[in-house]
Each structure stands twice: as C-alpha cells, then as structure tokens.
C-alpha cells in the first residue's frame, strides 16, 4: 500500500476527533538553528474544509487497526473498514513535508489500540521523539493519550508533546459501559488526574523537565447516547475544574458505515454542537457555572437563541444594567456584549460617560443589547417587552435545520 493510500485511510479515520487547535504552546523559533518549526502561542488555521472546520494540524491515526469495539467508532474491531498502518518514518516525513510547504502548524497523532495500550502509546511517543530529537522539529505536537498506558509512557509523551488529550467520549459512566465496553471512565479520570499532577508539579517547579506546556484537553461525542446538554455541560465542568483542562471539544456524532444498532442512525442537529460550544465558552471565559445555564434537573440548551441570551431572559431582574455603573463581569453578561467590548466600555468609562452611540460604534448588536442596558442617554421602557416577546424577536432564523433532510424523512 503506498503512502497516498495510507493517508487516505488514516486521515479519514481521524476526522471524527474534533480537537484541532494549535494554540497554547510556548514561543519557539528556528531562526539560525538546525531543524524547522516555530510556535507563536496563537495557533494558525491553514485551511478550511467544506465542513467549515479548520485545518491547523496534520491529524491522522498511526493505525486504524483496533482491538476495542466502541460502538460509535468507525475503527472498532467489528467494523468492516479498510485498515492501514503508517510506519514511524512515514508520519515523520509527512509532518515535515507538510510543515515546510506551510500546510500545517504541526501534528495531531492518535491511534487505534493495537496489541496493548502500552505498545500503542510507545509508538506514539516514538514518533514525537523522532520529530523532536532527530529532526529538531519545533512545531506543535498533540498526542492522544491511551488511558491504560503506563504512567511512565504518559510522562514521556508530555516531554515531547505540547498538548496531551485523553478522550472521555461519553458524558456518563453508564454510556461508556454500554457503548465502549473496553474503556473505563475510572481509568480515563485517573489518566487525566495524573497529567494534571504533572502539570501542577511543573508549574510549581519551573526548572523541572518540560511537560505538555499547552496542557490537556478532551473530547465528548454529542448525540451518540441519550445524554442531555445538562449532563454534558456538568461533566465538562467537572473535567475542567478537576483536571484543569484547556478545552473540552464537542463532536456531534456522525453516522458511520454499517452502524451498529446501539447508536443512532441520524446525527444530532449541528446547531446543538454549536450551542454547546457557546455554553462551554461561557464556562471557561465568562465565569458562568453550568447550573446557571441549565437546571440540575436536566434539559437541553435552546436552539433558537444563544445560551447567554437565554440566561439573560431567564434572569431579567439583573437588567437593564447601567453600563456606567456595573461591574465589568456583569457587563460581559449582557447579551451582545463580548469580553472585549466589556473591557473597552470599562476603559472608556474612565474618560467619560457611556452613550448609546458608543455602543453602535463598538459594533454591538443593538437590537440584542437595547432591552438589557442603560446608558447616559438611553434607557429601555420599563416592562416594555416580556421575555417571551423578546425571545421571539431575537430568535435566530432557523439554520441548518434541514441539513440532513433525507435522513430525517427516513
């Protein structure tokens, strides 16, 4: 099998993993040095595919042979897919060649489980070591960690990789037991915990050996089981705070060929994934907690409005908010005002009072924010619109609802 064939199969097999970012690594440069590669800390998207997702890394599996039988996965042992395996040198060469042509910022390497967790992990580490030590590659490397692997191998992975990830895949223990019989949430949490302990150690002892400077992340598949958004978000929150994850990626379940009966035939609406990302951003950057976005009793995020607007409509007592008096963190909670504009408003406020026209120039969505704010020259008419009415006027036109009409009809 030639390299093109392998690439075709092993990139196809890797596309279900939503992790893509190449940000968070410390700054590195190859100026005047042997070898290649740099990181700016920001990450660059080098292209976009027709699914609207960015290409920033060479995302491939080392092999799609797998002895596990995870029902949502196209590579499961009972799946009848063409199988392939890269050699170590092939992965290294592809990475370097693509990098030189400026197609990618680095490598995201994952693998089916072959032989054993340790054996598989060893191979992944071997490739990263080869890139770093033989080719002096300073670009980004993200390694998928095999949770059952020996902690010493995970430590070695952290020495070469910028980021490590351990995929939780499903939000509840029950779903994992049902759909991924060889996996164990317990083991996955232990692996995440051991990575966090090493990251903490490194933070406390800056001169200790390098360890995954861009931190760790995970992925959850949405819509392969019956879990609702509340379950998904509270699991994400638990993972963020317990293991100091940089990111939780959400991946709407894609139907797979010869799907087993245990997973749905149709994908969830893509908009659901989008709303989860928006809610996740509120958790990470706005100081929201999951229980503010969805009640502990369960439920899904609204599809017609974004989660911040939904929160504001459900908490009208905080509004209208006087932008000349309110806390920065509260200003950022106004629908239509992002973190950056919240900061700008507070900066401007030190010089003079905020007026309605300022917000127009800041390109805030005026329709969205008007009912929620008070400025020096503007305040909304009290009780002018009920939350119901507001919601109807602010709801987004349904998007993508008919993305899979043929499947929905079936």
């Amino acid at each position, binding site marked *: 099998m030639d390299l093109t064939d392998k690439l075709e199969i092993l990139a196809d097999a890797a596309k279900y993993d939503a992790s893509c970012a190449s940000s968070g690594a410390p700054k590195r440069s190859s100026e005047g040095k042997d070898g290649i590669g740099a990181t700016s800390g920001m990450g660059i998207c080098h292209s976009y595919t027709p699914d609207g997702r960015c290409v920033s890394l060479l995302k491939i599996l080392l092999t799609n042979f797998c002895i596990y039988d995870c029902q949502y996965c*196209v590579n499961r042992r009972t799946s009848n897919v063409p199988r392939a395996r890269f050699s170590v040198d092939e992965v290294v060469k592809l990475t370097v060649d693509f990098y030189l042509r400026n197609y990618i910022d680095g490598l995201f390497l994952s693998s089916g489980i072959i032989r054993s967790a340790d054996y598989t992990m060893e191979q992944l580490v071997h490739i990263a070591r080869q890139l770093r030590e033989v080719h002096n590659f300073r670009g980004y490397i993200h390694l998928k960690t095999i949770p059952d692997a020996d902690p010493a191998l995970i430590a070695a992975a952290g020495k070469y990789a910028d980021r490590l990830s351990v995929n939780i895949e499903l939000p509840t223990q029950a779903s994992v037991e049902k759909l991924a019989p060889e996996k164990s949430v317990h083991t996955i949490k232990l692996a995440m915990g051991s990575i966090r302990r090493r990251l903490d150690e490194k933070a406390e002892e800056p001169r200790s050996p390098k360890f995954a400077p861009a931190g760790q992340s995970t992925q959850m598949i949405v819509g392969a089981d019956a879990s609702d958004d509340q379950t998904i978000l509270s699991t994400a929150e638990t993972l963020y705070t317990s293991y100091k994850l940089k990111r939780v990626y959400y991946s709407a379940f894609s139907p797979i060929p010869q799907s087993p009966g245990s997973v749905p035939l149709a994908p969830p609406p893509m908009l659901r994934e989008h709303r989860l990302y928006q809610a996740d951003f509120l958790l990470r950057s706005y100081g929201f907690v999951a229980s503010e976005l969805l009640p502990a009793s369960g439920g899904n995020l609204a599809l017609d409005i974004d989660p911040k607007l939904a929160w504001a409509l459900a908490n009208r007592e905080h509004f209208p908010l006087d932008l000349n008096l309110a806390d920065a963190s509260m200003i950022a909670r106004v629908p239509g005002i992002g973190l950056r504009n919240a900061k*700008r408003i507070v900066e401007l406020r030190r010089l003079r009072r905020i007026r309605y026209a300022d917000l127009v120039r800041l390109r805030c969505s005026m329709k969205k924010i008007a009912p929620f704010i008070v400025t020096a020259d503007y305040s909304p008419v009290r009780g002018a619109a009920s939350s119901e009415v507001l919601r109807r006027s602010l709801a987004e036109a349904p998007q993508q609802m008919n993305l899979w009409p043929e499947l929905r009809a079936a």
Partner: protein
Amino acid sequence: MAGTAGSINAAVAASAGQPLLVAGFAEWREAARELLAFDIAPHAVKWIGQRDEADLFAGAPADPHEAAHAIDLRQARPVMHLPRKLMDMLQSAACCRVPDRWAFLYRVVWRWQHGDQVVLSPADEDGARLHAMVKAVHREEHDMHAYIRFRERPEAAGAPRFVAWFEPAHDVLPQVAQHFVSRMGRISWMIATPDASVLWDGETLHNTGPLVSSAADLDDAGEALWLTYYRSIFNPARLNAGLMRSHIPSRFWKHLPEGSVVPQMVSQAAAGARRTGQAEAVGQRRGTTIPIAADKAQPQRQAPSTLDECRRCELWQHATQAVGGAGPAHARIMLVGEQPGDQEDLAGEPFVGPAGQLLDQVLRDAGLDRRTIYLTNAVKHFKWEPRGKRRLHKTPAQREIEACSYWLDQELAQVKPDVIVALGSTALKSVLGTGNVTLKDTIGKPIRHDGRWVITVYHPSFVLRVPDEASKQQAMAVMVDGLRQAQQLLQMKSEN
C-alpha cells in the same frame, strides 16, 4: 517640490504649505514629532505617501527661507511620550493601504497630544477607524501566515528551495517574512508579491525587488499528498460550505491548491455522500474486521475495588476515585478526617495535600510516628463545587456521612483501634453515628464509645483557614494535646 521628512525640516516645510512625502512609518514618526513640537494642526499639513503623488505637487511654491519665518524655530514644545499601546497601533495601522493613512495617523497623535485620550477607544470615530485599520492589517498578516503555500523547487535549481507567490492587500511583507524566518530555520525560501519580494538564504533576508513571480508556475509533487489529506479529513456528514467560505475570503482560494478540488467535494457531499462521515473512496475499498475475541481485547486492569464501585451516594460521580484508609492493619490509633481533598482525590491517598502537611507537623509535635497510625476519612469521595477554576471543598451532608459509614465501619472492624481521633465534626458525627453532636461539647473530652476511646480535635483544614497566627497556634495546640491524650489513653489501657 515636495518636502521629505528628514531632508527638510518637516515643520518648516509644512508651514510653507509644502506637502510632506513619507515612504514609511519611521519617516512619518520623525515628521510627526516635529510637527507636534511646533503645534502644527492636522488640517495645515498635506501628506503624501508615494513618489508619483509627489510629482503632482511639482512646482508648488517652495521657499524654505520664507517658511522659516512663518514659525519660530526656537518655540519648540516638548512632545508627549506616546504609550506603547498607541505606538503599536500606529505602527500597524501605517501598514494599511489607504490613501490618507499618514494624515489620519497624524490627526490621531495630534488629538492624543492635546489630551484627547478618547481617540484610543473604538467607541470614538477616529478610534474606531484606527482599530479597524489595525484589525485589517493583523488580519492580512494572519491570512498571509496561513495561506501562503510554498512549492518545492528541484534540488538542482539551487536556492531558494521553496518559493511562494502571494498578493497581500496591505504592506505586511516585512513582518510576515520574519514569521517565516522563525519557521524555516536554515532552509532557503522566497516570497514574491506584486510589488516586492523577499528572499531568505538561510541566514539573511534580502529584498529582491518587485515583480518576481515564479512560484505559480512550479510543479510540486508534495501538493498531491496534501490534496489527498485535505479530501480525507473533510467529513461529508457535516457539509457546511457557507461556513468554509466565510472563513477564507474568495481572493485567497485561487492561489490555494485545495481551491480546485472544493467544488467537487461539495457536490459529492451534497449528492448523498454525507449520509456517513466516511469518504466515498475509502468506503469503496475492501475492508476487514479484526478477528479477536471480546475477552482477549479487554485491557489488563486491576479489578476495581468494591470501594471504587460504591454507589451508596452520588459523590462518586464528580470525584476521580474513592480514597480508602492507609496505615498498619492493626494500628492502635485511628485518625478519621472528613473527606479527601483536591490533592487526595488525584493521588488516591489520604492526607497528602496541605492539610496532610499540617497533620504531619502536629503528629511530630505530639511525638507520634505517622507510620504507626491508621489514617482515613469519614467520607471516601471528594465532595466539591466549582469556584472559578478551582474545586472548593464542600462539607458532606448527613445522609452522605451515613451512607459512607458503611466503609468506616468495615475499617474499624478490621483495624480494631483502641483510640479514635476524630478530626472535626464530620468525623465525629460519623464515628458516633449521630448528627446531633457538636465539636464544642466534645473537644478535649475523651468519650467512651463502643468500647473504645474517641477523642475530638480540629480538622487540619480548619486550622489552615484560621486567619491570624496566634489563633492558629492555639488551634494546633488543641490538636497536639488531643493526640498526646490519645497516647496516654493507650498507655492506660496497656497498664490495665
């Protein structure tokens, strides 16, 4: 003729009604400095940015001597020091190809110099334009970092090994070149654009002058592999071509190798391939299943302990693992804490975090060897709530204490200690099997319970939270006393 910053005094020239020709940011900055020093208002200055524009002004009245009378060269005022942020923005905005860039930038610094700091806010009219110009330039830098495609030249052709062609909308080539210098190490490359080109020979950057365009004509075998990757990493089940186009402006597509395969990918996906995520080409190949029995595929794992599988209450859900007790199987003193904390939850051992360190200190002060003591907690899973990015310890509820006493009872039955030291009220409630006890009533007073002594002291975490040093020492003393008492009670028992 036009005045040139540096060659003629800019303030003199401007006051004589001469346009100022600047070719770049450094020149503009020099000129602006002088103009500000003589307080020459923006409307009084005519800036031009290109030589051919300058020709339009050829023959304009120019008499530097006369102009020198118009301003008094001894009257220069100090110019305010510009903050770094403003300087950076000006420098970026100067790369934005708009005809009036120098005039606009001068108006901005003029306003700043006159105390009008609002000019930096995007809520200000000039501020908004300045931010927009900076953004456009950064965006162009980003796009050039992202969408330049190097093609590899045959070895025999010599340096540069890689060449790229790009049509930037703003003057960002210098900073972009720097980006590729850091990326490519000692490998040589060239980036050609319609009006300037740079060459990196592995050690130095050279401006190779305008109109070098060869990249577009190169054949590169590496491109075929890239297209294979590009096609394969696309998930047809998620087709969303509009989103893709909104990310990459159309002017870039024609220079991207993948641009040529997009239409076909979109139409294939739309025509039904999106039923599954798998690419059609892969689906058509012959597949194989992996012949391995389910039980052989099971990873070798330690069988989970029954404690780890405990579901007596909900606490297991948000914890990493259950933390059981540790210590000699028949220790005579058992220390019972409340519950594992953040560190214990990760490590799987009791008392390893800050509270554990304080406990070590107290044990030393009391003359006790930690290795002779059995350490455990009333509740085995960490109960917490998120606070910012941290896990904040939450006191277990009575029902959780009761649920978990199942495990403490087992430990008691196995270890059979003579003395139990309860650290804090959760431990006390669990040991006594009742919610109706308070720390206050029991501290420092040994109780007989179920045929053993129970001594209550503070929990080390409580001591850690005591705000002032004096009360902290006092609280530690209470703990040390309690542990000494525990030893005495043991001795009494063995003397009996």
